[in-house]
């Protein structure tokens, strides 16, 4: 019997139990030996950025969540959801969305790192393709880290796919994260081509990387660099100033630097779907009356980018930058991540901070003009900076959390928000790190207050 068993032990027939790679999959290395499949790996990252994480226009994205976190949006949904604590400034380290945003972002970063490594190891891809994909992936890596550092504070900066090191990463000081992002973006600027690789500005080009670079320099307080990077975008002839306020958020807008291609043909934006309602009170999210009341009476944005819904006694507001809420057969609007106005405002601030007051006012007035407003009356550098801040609030509302980041970098967050947000604590300027993350990585620490 034993001999029979021993005999059987050697009879393993390898061939029967060998299976081919399933037909819906490709091996990791094969993906980067072909331009089309490498491009598909990159396309998947944009789809992820569009549908999940900080850049998503749906309820969990930074537009909605950070808008509610500050004084931009009011939440009308039930209190039993994970969203309510963002509105009541009562976040817990166990909040599902806090953890989901963290995990989704690092997954997006993993995918970008996999593209970088795949392209670097590829033998068949052309140099032009490699530069294009690596440039895009570096841009994505910096972009996502930017939101992470903005909401969580010190965060690990992940630059490889190696789980052995990534699982033990420590929190990197904010300043170092900025340095890493700026490095990545400067590389991306050199690698990416000037022209868009496809017609609808849905893939980042060199100017897109410059636009993010300008924003990051501004956050880091490197004013000269911020001004130069913004100029690189503004001076690009691809972008021309739009004089019609209603055309700014159309998918053909000439001020768009980078926008998301929709999931389905004819789809419009997730933001439109989320914000627009036809009768009050708002079923889910409304624009705050604080924001609405802060607009000057003749500000065109108050009437063109905001809609008022009234039942006769009470009036509610919703963001109306995007006017379509469902599929229109042929898409009219795409979600715009970078647009020219922001670059003018970055340069205005950077110039003012460097004492270039008149050119700063010029940039600011460019934006005010479109809104139908008279030139600014600010005179001193401080006044101009304050005017730019107000302008940013009115120009960039419901666009990926600008208000939150601006209040924070200028140190106003703990003076402005307690007046309108009863649940606000000074430690709320950072989200908690997800509790699960702290439990599996002993090198991470929690933010104060959680």
């Amino acid at each position, binding site marked *: 019997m034993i001999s029979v068993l021993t005999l059987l032990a050697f009879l393993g027939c390898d061939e029967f139990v060998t299976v081919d790679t399933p037909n819906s999959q490709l091996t990791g290395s094969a993906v980067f030996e072909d331009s089309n499949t490498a491009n598909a790996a990159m396309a998947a990252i944009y789809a992820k950025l569009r549908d999940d994480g900080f850049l998503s226009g749906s309820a969990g994205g930074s537009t909605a969540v950070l808008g509610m976190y500050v004084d931009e949006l009011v939440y009308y949904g039930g209190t039993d959801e994970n969203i309510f604590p963002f509105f009541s400034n009562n976040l817990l380290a166990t909040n599902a969305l806090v953890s989901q945003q963290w995990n989704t972002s690092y997954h997006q970063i993993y995918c970008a790192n996999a593209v970088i490594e795949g392209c670097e190891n590829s033998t068949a891809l052309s140099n032009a393709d490699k530069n294009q994909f690596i440039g895009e992936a570096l841009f994505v890596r910096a972009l996502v880290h930017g939101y992470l550092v903005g909401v969580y504070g010190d965060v690990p900066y992940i630059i490889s796919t190696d789980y052995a090191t990534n699982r033990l990463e420590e929190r990197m000081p904010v300043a170092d994260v900025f340095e890493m992002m700026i490095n990545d973006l400067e590389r991306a600027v050199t690698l990416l081509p000037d022209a868009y690789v496809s017609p609808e500005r849905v893939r980042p080009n060199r100017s897109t990387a410059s636009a993010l670079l300008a924003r990051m320099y501004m956050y880091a307080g490197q004013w000269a660099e911020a001004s130069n990077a913004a100029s690189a975008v503004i001076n690009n002839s691809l972008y021309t100033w739009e004089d019609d306020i209603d055309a700014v958020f159309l998918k053909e807008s000439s001020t768009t630097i980078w926008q998301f291609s929709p999931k389905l043909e004819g789809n419009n934006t997730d933001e439109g779907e989320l914000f627009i309602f036809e009768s009050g009170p708002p079923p889910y999210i409304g624009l705050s009356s604080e924001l609405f009341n802060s607009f000057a009476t003749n500000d065109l944005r108050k009437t063109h980018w905001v809609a008022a819904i009234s039942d006769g006694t009470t009036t509610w507001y919703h963001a109306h930058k995007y006017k379509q809420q469902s599929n229109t057969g042929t898409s009219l609007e795409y979600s715009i991540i970078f647009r020219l106005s922001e670059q003018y405002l970055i340069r205005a601030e950077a110039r003012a901070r460097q004492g270039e007051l008149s050119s700063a006012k010029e940039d600011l007035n460019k934006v005010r003009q479109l809104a139908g407003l008279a030139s600014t009356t600010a005179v001193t550098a401080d006044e101009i900076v304050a005017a730019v801040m107000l302008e940013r609030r009115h120009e960039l509302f419901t666009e990926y959390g600008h208000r939150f980041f601006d209040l924070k970098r200028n140190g106003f967050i703990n003076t402005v928000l307690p007046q309108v947000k009863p649940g606000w604590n000074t430690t709320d300027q950072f989200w908690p790190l997800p509790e699960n993350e702290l439990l599996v990585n002993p090198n991470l620490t929690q933010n104060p*207050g959680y």
Partner: protein
Amino acid sequence: MNKFSLFPLWAALPLPKLFSIFLFFCITVGYTQTVTVTGSTSDASGVLAGVTIQVKDKAQGTLSDELGNYTLSVLPTDTLVFSFVGYKTVEVAVGNQYVFNVVLQEDTTQLREVIVNAGYYTVKEKERTSSISSISANDIEKQPVTNLLATMQGRMAGVDIRQDSGSPGGGFSIKIRGQNSLRADGNEPLYIINGVPYSSETIGAISTSGFSPSLTSPLNSINPSDIESIEVLKDADATAIYGSRGANGVVLITTKKGKAGATSFTVNSSTSFGTVTRLPKLMNTQQYLAMRELAFANDGVTTYPSYAYDVNGTWDRNRYTNWQKEFIGGTANITNVQASVFGGSSQTKYLLSGTYRNETTVYPGDFNYKKGAAHFSMDHKSVDEKFTLTFSGTYSSQKNNQPTVNLTAISRTLSPNAPAIYDEEGNLNWEDSTWDNPLAVLQSKFTSKTKDLVANTLLSYTIFKNTSLKSSFGYSDLTNNELNAQPSTIYNPAYGVGSEISFLSTNLTNRTSWIAEPQLHWHASTGKGKVEALVGSTFQQQKTNRLYINGYGFASNSLLNDLASASLKTVDLSDETIYKYQAFFARLNYTYDNRYIVNVTGRRDGSSRFGPGKQFATFGAVGAAWLFSKESFLADNSVLSFGKLRASYGTTGNDQIGDYQFLDTYASSGTNYEGTIGLDPTRLFNPAFGWETSKKFEVAVETGYFNDRIFLTAAYYRNRSSNQLVGIPLPGTTGFPSLNGNLDATVQNSGLELTLRTVNFQRKNFDWTTNFNISASRNKLISYPGLEGSTYANLYVVGEPTSIIKIYHYTGMSSATGAYEFEDLNGDGIITAAGDRKAVADLNPKFFGGLQNQFKYKNLQLDFLFQFVKQQAFSSINGVPGLAINQLATVSDAENQQPFTAGGNSALTTAYSRYVRSDAAIEDASYVRLKNISLTYDLPLLRHQKIQCQLYLQGQNLLTFTKYKSGDPETKFTNVLPPLKVFTVGTKLTF
């Protein structure tokens, strides 16, 4: 018989056969003294069908029919032997009598002669060296349930079964002797139906089925009323022959077969009514509003916010609705009809049965679950009994139409003064956009259709006297088609959207598998020794195809069920996975003097789920038994009638890790960007993982006293799993939540199982038997080098069970703020999960079991089963008290809690989030449940009417005794529908 009428038939027969038949005929004719005897067989409680009536020392014999009648031609010199499993054999000399009405006496010791199915072989109960629990159709038929796992609950030692949800079509979870694998999804036993492995992996897509009834459990396809017996193989001796798939136990399902005798028809129909077992008591409007007002006051808010509709007067503050009653308080109706026909000769037997079942739900609205099944079985053996053929096939079709929203969860959280669901015209009431009407979602429709075919054939041929060649072939084909239609009307009309946003999600899953298992069986006897051996091999392949298609935008909501009408379609997934499996197995069994038994089994397995070089592994076990009651010093003991000591040791494995996990791949994301369908990295890559091994040890004593009227089995087992194959949890910074790999940790499951069967009364008209089982198991992490530096550091503790959860130690309420406080274990001045959540709670049951009693009085039979579980569970966790979420009624006692907050107080919110993960939130959830009760009455009809009629009443989960305050102790406060309390009335007609 008119012998001449056979002549034309003869003409058609080939010559050699004709000659032999002619010879046979002459011989028969030669015995002129043959007499025909008739009679009936019965036992103390009435007709006993299927009794074997054999002529002693001759091949002649027959079986009594459904009415207990028989006819047999014999010689006056013959002796008739009446035998039936579980009864004492009766011998009667024929003499000059023609009618023998025999009443058989039950013989408890006969139970040892019962043949137990061990998968590749069968074994007599008394000679068994392994640990096998079983239940038979007798027990299964008494339970008005639809899932076969439900029939086993409380009846098997060491088998822990829980109902996941009371929703029709929902699943059950099963753990045989504890959780071996650290993987939550790698603990399923191997299911084998008539020799064909049956994949229990759930089917369907979350995107389609949404909440309910989560994913479809294929086990629902198996119709309990078609099952003859279920055997659960537990120890190494029984499971090692299943090698890599045996670590979590093996569930063998044998379907019903035909019986020889006159054609018999059975029709069984029943109607049941089901309601939810237990609901937690929630606040009424007065209590709820008092909580809310206090919460705002505590937060220092004097003007209620505009969106606080429940408390600011927008909603009627005097309105009260018991939402639990409204949403899950209905009565489910269950109709079940089964008809079968069986019969045949001693050579060929058949059975054909069909079942139809329809279940409605406890939810409002038109939801139901329908199941139809057909089962066919045929057995044939050649005249010389050398060749046998067994075929069985079952086909089932299920249609499940369930709500796509978790109404149980909503019913427990919705404010008690929330508005009416419907307005006066019967339309959905949106109360001016102040709420998302929870029943709006019921306009979406989820339908799941599952069709399942399982067929198998077993061919056996005796080559030599002691050697037979067997081969089993099996095929299964399962198709699941799911539709989830979401019309635009589920959205608040304030959005002003129409059918252009309506959405249809479909998925089609097809899983086919085939298996071939050629085997060679051999047995021999030498003196007092007896040897049995078998060698065999397995070739198996399973192919799963999935196709997920979504449709968006419809011209009208009335076209929503038609995918072709969608203006846009996307294919989210279209894939094919293949699982291939190959094995060689062997068994050698030696019995000496009916006293000493050794059983050796082994298997070498190869699985496509592992990478090159890691595909093969060998498993094996040794089992031994000593029937000490046969020893001379105990042979005539008047108290001890049976005694056996058995032990086993061996290894088994587990390959439940999913297909292709060793490959580093990119897969189609199914998501479009700029006209390109993306490619996603599928996982973190680790090609080096291999088989996980479980070493199982068991020792057991089986003893029978007073002619086996008391029969006690006590077993101790200790299973150790090492080299565990797990999804090692990883921090999000790695990009993925886990990595497949082998873990250098050893997990031990040990436990005690006791089974006691007593025949308390055995009289002519009254029988009372009791079955009792109890199991206590303990799981322990034996060793884990490097635990501290691993991602499991905050999950496990060496020396503690792997099922523990870490909790805070609650120390009371702060004297200053009233907030809950916890022990600062590491003394760093702050409470953190990593530093202070170190107390340990084990929510696994401490022990569980069942007590079954059976009473028979004349035509009346009463059975009942109490199931008991000793365990702890978390209390209700609805959310911070003070938010617009309903709470347990006990929460209105504000004095004994921290202050309520409406969301404005972070410190209280944080303290509450720790409280629900602390020892203060754990309560006793032990329970005793009247799991099943069945009363059967045989109508006393006259024998010659050839008809039998049985009336029965059955109940499932009728009574529950527990201290648990947060609802049902089986599903706990998990916001799933608790199990139903089912009451059944039915009749069974046989003719």
